[in-house]
């Protein structure tokens, strides 16, 4: 199989408007991945599937990753001249910046026809609150169907173009996205809205509430 640089170069030659970058994996597995821009992802995915050299017809694993915003401290070393006339002093200057957070969808592609792989695709959302829409790749690989629904359920990425985007594992009335890093589980799930809310309501009305106890006469204030 071609290496990742060759694939990227071919993609850039074929789709001049697309942005394709290589994300380096520093670990010992060294499985590097291609970062695509969401707008051109569906046509690139279709090209990867149908290209006779690659034939990545099998999308094995689709998953989400949450990268919350984090504070990064940049340390710049500066040499400052000593006013007393001695040798220059090295001073560390620390600047803090906020790296914005995003959600990521990761696709692991293999080829069953040519028995090679893997090529890893990554798509990133704009942020973690309102720009969470990514294009769905389910029209290209049907195997992403349940897995994209699961990401929508647990991470809150909205896949535009998915044929049946509903929650997969949590119940429909559930509000939050539990796999996000900042998710806080409620103290008591009994108070969460469930499909059985009306059952509880009906159970309350099943037996009428007992009549209020006869009010004890309040002792009259003594004059």
């Amino acid at each position, binding site marked *: 199989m071609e290496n990742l640089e060759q694939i990227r170069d071919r993609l850039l030659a074929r789709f001049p408007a697309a942005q394709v970058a290589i994300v380096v994996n520093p670990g010992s597995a060294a499985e590097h991945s291609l970062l695509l821009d969401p707008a051109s992802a569906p046509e690139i995915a279709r090209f990867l599937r149908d290209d006779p050299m690659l034939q990545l017809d099998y999308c094995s694993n689709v998953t989400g990753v949450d990268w919350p915003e984090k504070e990064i401290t940049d340390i710049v070393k500066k040499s400052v001249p000593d006013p007393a006339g001695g040798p220059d002093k090295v001073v560390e200057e620390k600047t803090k910046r906020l790296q914005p957070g995003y959600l990521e969808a990761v696709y692991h592609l293999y080829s069953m026809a040519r028995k090679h792989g893997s090529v890893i695709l990554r798509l990133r959302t704009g942020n973690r609150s309102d720009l969470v829409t990514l294009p769905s790749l389910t029209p290209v690989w049907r195997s992403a169907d349940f897995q994209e629904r699961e990401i929508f359920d*647990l991470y809150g990425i909205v896949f535009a173009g998915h044929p049946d985007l509903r929650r997969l594992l949590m119940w429909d009335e559930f509000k939050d996205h539990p796999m996000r890093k900042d998710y806080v589980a409620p103290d008591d799930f009994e108070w969460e809205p469930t499909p059985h809310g009306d059952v509880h309501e009906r159970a309350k009305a099943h037996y009428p509430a007992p009549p209020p106890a006869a009010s004890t006469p309040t002792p009259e204030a003594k004059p």
Partner: protein
Amino acid sequence: MSLFPANSGPTVRAVHDEFHGDLLEVSMGPQHPSTHGVFRMVVTLDGEQIVKLKPVFGYLHRNHEKIAENTSYLSSMPYTDRLDYLCSMTTNWAYALAVEKLSGQAVPDRAQYLRIIMAELTRLVNHSCLVGFLFNDLGTSFTPLLYAFREREKILDLFESLSGSRMMCNYQRFGGCRVDPSPEWLAAASALVDNFPRFLDEYETMLTGNEILLARTQGVGRLAAAHAINAGITGPVLRASGVDYDLRKVDGTGFYPRFEFRVPLGAHGDTYDRYMMRILEMRESVKILQQAFKTLPAGPIMDPKAKLRGFRPKAGEAYGRLESPKGELGFYLISDGSPNPWRYRVRPPSLINLTLLEEMCLGHTIADAVVILGSIDIVLGEVDR
């Protein structure tokens, strides 16, 4: 005085009302014996024919991935047993494989052999039970299943004497295995494996030519190869459709390239082929096991450099996958250098193999849908995680 008010009786609807001839929606499950756990199918019927089928998941969801992200790498190992509770040895191995890929750890030869022995014994357990459950779904009340359970108990006894637990084995470690089997254990396991083809012959004499099996499964639930590939179907279900894709051959996981075995392929992709795949794969597994017992090398079972406690792989990510009895079981891990994984993802073959359940069932009856579901082989601990 009547116990109920006058208007609380059952409503009897006339047949000739406006709803007659309408589609009927049947909710099968989550508490239904043929769904193999808490799985639910919302089936729409036109007469007896299925015109729509929507699977509903999540009744066994406990957010396994979140729990694993909040604990150390080693602590998740016993928890992976609970994913596919019939095949804990292969789920352990798949997780160990991903962590070893993440940290670049070596595995000694003897441990590689032991892993293959455990994985193939697990395949025998899974496939023989699956065939038994499939016949339960066909209506033979428990006889084939109890034949399978008889053999399964022998293998589970071996697992218990080795790892301390029948089903929740917690056997694999990053860089090797936990316990070294004694020579007596190996002799007992080898004798069991040598006797296993006799059980298979007995099983097949009873089942394979059975008219009910032939009538109910041949041509039922056909799955075309191109559809199956696009939908990410893996394992025996994919190979029943004639696609030659077995990770033991394709990836050469562990020491599998050192063993001689064939990958059985189906021709029709129907339920009968999926049944036959299991029988044929068991025969191939017996071959692998016999070779493994003959050539098992001596030596350590743990890499001396392996570090289990205080294990911190350096930052990076890895996707490790293994041919489990149900299909491609993968673990995707992202490390940020801390003792806990930043991202821990299980690629569940049972869930993804259900993608085409609707297509397979369309046009058949509910009784066929039960058999088709049984032939896909799902375990709800893995589907819902």
